[in-house]
């Protein structure tokens, strides 16, 4: 069983757009190894960096927000980004759980 209907992220995206905000959808499209959220999980980001939903357990969201804001600034339609295992000794963004994920960013227009 999959719970696509339970999350109201896309509904929220439409609310944001109707409030004249620019919105990027960020969707988990592939996972390898152990990853916190399944394929299809989604977050939305606006031009100010406000976000809702999630693509991990809080591990990579900050990087996704930055990438989404850049996408809006550069007015690009879409982009794919990948996150790998983080190095515990470095302050870098990654997945502490040891998994890998690919996240797809797309502007709604």
């Amino acid at each position, binding site marked *: *069983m999959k719970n*696509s209907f*339970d999350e109201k992220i896309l*509904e929220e995206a439409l609310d944001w*757009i109707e409030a004249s905000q620019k919105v990027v959808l960020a969707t988990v499209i*592939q996972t390898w190894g152990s990853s916190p959220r399944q394929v299809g999980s989604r977050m939305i980001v606006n031009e100010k960096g406000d976000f809702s939903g999630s693509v991990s357990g809080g591990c990579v969201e900050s990087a996704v927000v930055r990438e989404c804001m850049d996408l809006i600034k550069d007015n690009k339609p879409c982009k794919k980004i990948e996150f790998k295992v983080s190095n515990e000794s470095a302050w870098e963004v990654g997945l502490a759980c040891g998994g890998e994920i690919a996240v797809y960013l797309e502007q709604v227009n």
Partner: protein
Amino acid sequence: MKLQTLKSIIEKKKNKSEFAIITNLSTGESELFEKNKPLSKEMEAYSNKINEFFKNKKNGVIENSEIFIETYVLPIKVIVVGAVHIAQYLVDYAKNLNFEITIIDPRGYFASEQRFPDMKIINKWPDEAFKEIETNENTALIALTHDPKIDDPALQHALKKKFYFIGALGSKKTHENRCQRLKDSGFSEKEINSIHGPIGIKLGGKSAPEIALSIIAQLVAETYIK
């Protein structure tokens, strides 16, 4: 994604129809897939794969391609018999889960719009009410009245239709009596034992919201076992 596509997705979710979003990752173009609806020329080449993902209710990227599929499946139907205090909390919890709830209660003063705003309520006896709802092995029953006149016919219907989850509120003694009545009506021991009675996982709580939480927790657990 086009704004128009986003709007159609939300509309389809609202109408509880099954569909998939097909996205070309290299262009960012997306379209909606539905059973028996032709795909665009661009996606036709992937139609077998898309159907496979859709049938298996899976999300993912088609191998060696830039096509991503996200399927939306129907929520699970949950029939709550008894528009009682616990049901009010159950409905509240279920709002954030993938359940579509229908409440049955022949007692009008319980099953009121005021007590259950925006809920599907059938103000009839279970035998009559079930004529209005399509049920199958993907349906769950939560019987809350512990009144045999109301609960028993619903339990019998659920057993006959092989609901994947059947639970009934009531003490151990109430449940023993209930099992005996079902046995007298010709149900097998295996069928009767499939009923969760007393319903809910052991949380220890006694208030209405606590009991509702224990019931919804058991329902979610059984849904994933299914």
